[in-house]
Each structure stands twice: as C-alpha cells, then as structure tokens.
C-alpha cells in the first residue's frame, strides 16, 4: 500500500499524541510532533520521527499557537496535521489555515466544526431536523429576557457557555433564587475559557446518563455509526470511566440512539470521526452536543469494533472511501477505559503533582500513557496520566480485567486515583450497571482511601524502614533491648 501522506504532524501532546503517532508510523508514514520544552520527556517526543519545539508565553499557549504550528509543520515537510483532542482540534479557523497552507487537516470540514462548535446553532440545527433536544432558554435569542426565560424552563436547570465543552463553566441550579448569581459565575468562566460569555440554560435531567455515539463519514457521502459509549461515571463533569456497549440500553434503544446520531451526522454532511453526545434518562434521550474530533475515550470503540479510528481518520482525510458499511460493524464483547488521573479523590479530586519515578504499565491491558519513567506530572496541563483500556468477553469479564490491570500498573512518585477507580469497579451499583452522571458525587464513601489493615500497615512500615538509611542507621547505633534477641547473653 502506498502511504496516504509522506509525513503527518501531530499538533498535540500527552497520551493522544503518542497514540496517533503509533498509527501514523504503523501505516508507514513519518510521524512528527510539536512540543513545548516542558514536554521534552514525554512518550510522543521520544517516539516521533521528528519532534519540533514550539514556544509561547505558557506551555498551553504554545499548543494553541496555530500559526506557529502550521509554519513549523510546513517547514518540516508535513502533508497533514492531526489535531488530536482539545487545543486546536475544534478550531475552524485552524482547520481552514491548515488547508490554506497546502496541508490536509485530519478532521471534519471547517463548516462542520463551526456549526457544531456553537452549541446554540448546533442545537437549533438538530431540533429543526426533528431530532430530540431538551427544553431550553438561549441567551442569544433575546438577551434582555434570558434570566426570565431560564426561570420559566424551571429547576433543575443546567447553565452552560454557548462556546463551551468539557464541562467548563457548567453549573446546575436547583434553587432558582441563586439563578442570577450562577449565571454571573458561568458567564465569567465562559469568558475566560472560551473568550465568549454567552450562555444557555436547559432542563437538567435528574439522574441522567451520558451516552454518546461514534460516527465516521467520508468525502463520498458514506456515514456510519460505531455504536455507543457510556461515559456516565464522571467527577465534576469530567469522565472517569467509559465503556462500550452501554449497560443501560435495550437493543431497540441502542438502534434508535445510534441511528439518530448517524442521521445528525448525515444532516451535517459530516466527514471524518465525530461523536454525537446524548443525555439519557427515563427511557428518553436528548441531543447534547456533537464533538467534531477524536474523543479521549475512542479506544473502547476500537476494542469492541476492531477498528483503528486514527487509521480511518487518516484514510478519510486523504480522500479514500470508508470501505465498509454499517452492516460490517458489530459489537464484540465489552470494553472499559479508566482514566488514571494525578489527583486525590479524598481531597475533592485536587490535582497532585510529582516526578514519575517508576512507571510500569500492566502487560495485560492497553495503556495509552502520557508520561514516561523519569518524566514529571505538572500542573501545567490536564491531570490525566494514562488511560487503562481492557476488553473482555462480557461486562463482568471486562470489570475483572480492569481491576487486575489497575493493580498491576505501578506508578510511584505521584499520587493517583487508582485506588478510587478500583473502589468504583467494586461498587455493587456499578457492577449492576446502575449509575448516572451524579453517582460519584452521591458515593462520598468511595472517595477516601480506606484505613490500611494492621497487617498491611506493618508491611508498609517494614518496607519503608528497611529501605531508609536513617532508620537502618538508627537501629545499628542503639543496642537492641534484651528481649529482642534470644542469644544476647552468649
């Protein structure tokens, strides 16, 4: 097979940059990556055929500097740019600029990014074409009456920035007397994160489940769905555990929600990989938003469908047809992804930092990691260290494999949420598939690390004392009491 592009540049960092490079290189293309100096010691920089340093006022700013990245990509001979997720992935201007610079943007058209990136326009577009959306009030419709109209939708309400995503700036209002205060806070966050303070409010579905559908489209008019992922296990609106298929859906609901997603993608004329997110509760689903990029949790879809989504993205971006139909896709077994975060669940998920002194991923799982031994977890970026992905014959088997993979994965130097993830996996409600996006918030008893058993505490203390010079030297310096040594009198 001749390669699609001679070289592909990844405009991203961390685990996703490494994951994309893996496929680029496996397909026989040169894999390039840009990196800020703080990321010099990361997997993507180590594995890239060429790693190109970029700079900026902050590390994040460097990865957001589209003009600099395009200039360096061109100079390095890249024929395509893959944006990963976050940063420039859903920036229509960047996609346009990549094309203007004579390279291929690995993603949908700028028009599709633009339409779906504006949550208000996206929602209207979807509603007008007959797909289900939740009752709402949109500030832009008539800014002067926004508060009144939001109040009229009724509590509980969810307030979101129009330009938002990833849970940033979202607020649940149960007490309408706090509505104006929460609107002000949401506006300030929207302004800061997205440079856009416009908001919308919608009915908050109590005990909602987050179910999303992977779609793929090519430039020849083919659109397929690759079934759903359930991502209801979240903390602070950020996903923690994702799985496919969802334990909540009957075959009929699965067909309905997946068909709706494919229908929305067709209506948009969508090309490349995308995800249509729905909120599901009481047997009903509503369109939430469409993410016009590869998602963090795409591996669970890869595991159950057997497809390499990055390879499909690259083929479609090069103009090739998908090469398979909806009927060719089936769900095989069950896949779970756990996000290993540098955070302390017991302290309200406060981020932790530290050196990665030892990192030994479990050999029995797919682990997409953003760190290497000798690297460092800093506060400069998102606290996700790695994704632990397992595939089992059924859900119970996948849960067992997930627990084993977490237990086998050794990361020393920085506190992680591994113990918390294992407690979630062991939770009876989780095992029965009975949960919703507020489940973690309700299960406060799962947050703190349980007290060590006396036996384990003793072994931990023994290991620590024996490995520390101070404690060993102290032992040598002071004679043992008679009682400790049987042959003292000899």
């Amino acid at each position, binding site marked *: 097979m001749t390669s699609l592009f001679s070289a592909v540049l990844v405009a991203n960092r961390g685990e996703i940059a490494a994951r994309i490079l893996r496929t680029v290189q496996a397909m026989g293309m040169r894999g390039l990556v840009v990196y800020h100096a703080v990321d010099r010691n990361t997997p993507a920089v180590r594995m890239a055929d060429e790693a190109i340093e970029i700079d900026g006022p902050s590390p994040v700013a460097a990865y957001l500097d589209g003009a600099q990245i395009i200039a360096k990509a061109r100079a390095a001979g890249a024929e395509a740019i893959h944006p990963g997720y976050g940063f420039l992935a859903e920036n229509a201007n960047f996609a346009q600029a990549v094309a203007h610079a004579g390279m291929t943007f690995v993603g949908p058209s700028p028009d599709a990014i633009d339409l779906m990136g504006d949550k208000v326009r996206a929602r209207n577009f979807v509603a007008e074409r007959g797909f289900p959306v939740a009752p709402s009030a949109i500030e832009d419709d008539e800014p002067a009456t926004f508060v009144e109209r939001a109040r009229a939708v009724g509590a509980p309400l969810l307030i979101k920035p129009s330009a938002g995503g990833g849970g940033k700036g979202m607020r649940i209002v149960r007490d309408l007397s706090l509505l104006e205060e929460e609107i002000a806070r949401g506006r300030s966050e929207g302004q800061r994160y997205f440079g856009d303070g416009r908001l919308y409010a919608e009915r908050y579905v109590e005990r909602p489940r987050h179910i999303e559908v992977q779609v793929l489209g090519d430039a020849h008019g083919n659109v397929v769905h690759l079934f759903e992922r359930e991502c209801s296990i979240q903390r602070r609106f950020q996903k923690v555990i994702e799985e496919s298929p969802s334990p909540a859906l009957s075959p009929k609901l699965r067909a309905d929600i997946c068909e709706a997603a494919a229908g929305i993608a067709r209506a948009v004329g969508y090309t490349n990989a995308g995800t249509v997110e729905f909120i599901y509760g009481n047997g009903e689903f509503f369109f939430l938003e469409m993410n016009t990029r590869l998602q963090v949790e795409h591996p669970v879809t890869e595991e159950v469908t057997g497809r390499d989504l990055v390879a499909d993205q690259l083929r479609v971006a090069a103009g090739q047809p998908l090469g398979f139909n909806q009927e060719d896709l089936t769900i095989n077994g069950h896949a779970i992804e756990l996000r290993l975060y540098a955070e302390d669940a017991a302290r309200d998920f406060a981020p932790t930092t530290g050196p990665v002194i030892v990192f030994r991923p479990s050999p029995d799982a797919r682990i997409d990691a953003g760190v290497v031994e000798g690297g460092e977890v800093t506060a400069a970026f998102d606290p996700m260290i790695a994704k632990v992905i397992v595939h089992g014959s059924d859900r119970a088997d996948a849960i067992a494999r997930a627990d084993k993979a977490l*237990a086998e994965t050794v990361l020393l130097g920085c506190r992680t949420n591994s113990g918390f993830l294992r407690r979630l996996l062991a939770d009876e409600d989780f095992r029965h598939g009975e949960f919703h996006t507020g489940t973690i918030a309700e299960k406060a008893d799962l947050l703190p690390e349980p007290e060590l058993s006396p036996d*384990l505490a003793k072994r931990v203390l023994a290991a620590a*004392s024996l490995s520390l010079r101070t404690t060993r030297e102290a032992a040598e310096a002071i004679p*043992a009491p008679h009682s400790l040594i049987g042959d003292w009198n000899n």
Partner: protein
Amino acid sequence: MQHIFTIDGERADAWLSPSGTSYALIHEGEVTPVKLTEQTGNRAVLTLDGQDTPITIVTINDQVWVHIDGAAHEVVLQSAIDFLGSADGGASSGTILAPMPGTVISVQVAVGDAVSIGETLMIIESMKLETAIKAPRDGVIETLGFAAGQTFDQNALLVTLEGED
C-alpha cells in the same frame, strides 16, 4: 529509637532493631523479624514473619514510595518537630493554605479589612475549576499571599486572619 512516619498522610510509629542477619520491626508493641531482598528495576521481596510479598519501592531522601498488594503508598519519615508543627494550623485557625496548585482569579478583600465567616476572600482556579476561598471565621485580613493573576503551589499561604484562634 522510635520513628514517626506518615503513611498516605496518616501517622504511624515504628522502629528497627538489629536481629540476626537482618532486623526486627517494632510496631504497636509487636516485634516482627523483617527482611528486604532487593531485585532489579526497583523491585524487591519483603519477608515478614517468613511471609514473602513482592513489592516495588523507591526512596527519595526521607520519602518512600511503595507499591504493595496492588496499590501505591507514600511513606514519609517525619521529624517529631515537623509533625507537631503541622498538627495545629487548619482552616479554623485563620490560616488558609492552597488546597491545590492554581491561579488567583480575583481578590475580594484588602489587608486590614474586617470579614465575617463565610465571606468570599478570593476566587482561585485550579485545573479548570473556580473555587471561592471563604473566611473560616470572623476576623481581620492580616496577609494576602497572592494578587490576581499570580500562580501558587499546593499548600502555599493564601490568606491569614488576625485575631485569636
């Protein structure tokens, strides 16, 4: 001599005594023969009471990280004085430490301002989330550690209040 450790932040006391070719651990009044056999790649086998446990272990100064029974634990050898020094403090004392690293978004008060319990003193942002830092009690602002726009590390001193604790 008795050593004070913390395991994942919880205090535990223990000490070693020479015993045969290795040591005995004295903890909670029990004496247990212990031995550590180091292997490659930070791996080791801990033998306690004749029972072997495979572990992964690293030390940095007085800090030890150990992966044992499928989980990592951070053990820190504390000096007694350090431990007592941090044992008071806490939010009700009027000393507010940063719960996590982040950036100051805005500061609502100035040094010398009288504040009431629950009043918002500053808004900080850590990992994409805004948090209001509120007064833990009534008092007068004594120091403000940071101005709007500045970044801080975990446990940095954000605000102190004057007056009795």
